[in-house]
């Protein structure tokens, strides 16, 4: 994408992938303003280097990887400045779309809380596996961790979610 087509291509990337990127970032930052800033950071980088996506094997995985790297920088900056505390990081956010069914709505609320209780490392893997359907290989590559680590983080995270959500899930299933 070059010149005038840059805007069109950037718009297409946003329309196709921004939802997934925002969901991932929101799940990990638990902060809408930070999610907005990080998403902006990703698209700003894309505008600067429009050719990087074209070379990517999997567009979504590549953009998620960019978002993850931006997130890592953000965490580093945040820890450096110590501007935010844990309570702010785990603030309640509308991660899931609202549901008409009250039971389903309650389940989504509980799921959001249960996800917030997971360590960020497990939450990242659980999110990428469940809602992005990435393979453990892709997740391991994206997060720069061994394959077994990705798999075990997913297993531990899912076990915690299962334990936490079991009563509610048994009611609504």
């Amino acid at each position: 994408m070059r010149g005038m087509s840059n805007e069109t291509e950037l718009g297409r990337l946003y329309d196709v992938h921004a939802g997934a990127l925002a969901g991932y970032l929101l799940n990990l930052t638990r902060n809408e303003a930070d999610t907005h800033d990080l998403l902006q950071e990703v698209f700003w980088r894309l505008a600067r280097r429009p050719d990087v996506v074209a070379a990517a094997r999997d567009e979504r995985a590549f953009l998620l990887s960019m978002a993850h790297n931006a997130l890592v920088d953000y965490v580093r900056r945040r820890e450096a400045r110590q501007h935010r505390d844990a309570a702010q990081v785990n603030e309640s956010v509308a991660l899931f779309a609202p549901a008409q069914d009250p039971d389903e709505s309650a389940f989504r609320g509980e799921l959001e809380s249960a996800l917030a209780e997971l360590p960020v490392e497990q939450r990242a893997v659980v999110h990428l596996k469940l809602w992005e359907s990435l393979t453990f290989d892709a997740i391991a590559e994206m997060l720069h961790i061994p394959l077994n680590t990705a798999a075990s983080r997913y297993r531990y995270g899912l076990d915690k979610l299962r334990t936490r959500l079991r009563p509610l899930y048994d009611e609504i299933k």
Partner: protein
Amino acid sequence: MNPDDFEQHLRRQPLNAPPAHWRDEILGAALEFPARGRGLTTGPSLVKSLRDWLWPRPLAWGALGAAWIAIFALNSAAAPNPAELAQARAGARVAAGLAVLDMSQALELVAEPGAHTAADNPRRVPPDQGCIANQPPQDIV
């Protein structure tokens, strides 16, 4: 609870879409300043990056700085003044002269082996090994 059912149920939970107004904000910002963003190492960004890098442990950096200052001060205080330096140089010159003298004496001895007689070397008496062997036997009272 079947694990697969549970996982599938989780997968079916739809994520919220980002607010609609984000699109214009984000794309507008990305396209408006493609060369002046946060990632460039321009002056203020470089300063900010350095500050972010240095700031995490201000106490540690302060202590390190103080340690360097202390080392520098001690080093300066321990340095010899010009008078001491001149004295040390003079001492070194004397030592060098003595060394040359010793060397020349040694060379003279090698050159005149006859001059070095036995008289020059007094016979070395071995240390007393004990007088018991040389003493006459004594009566034991």
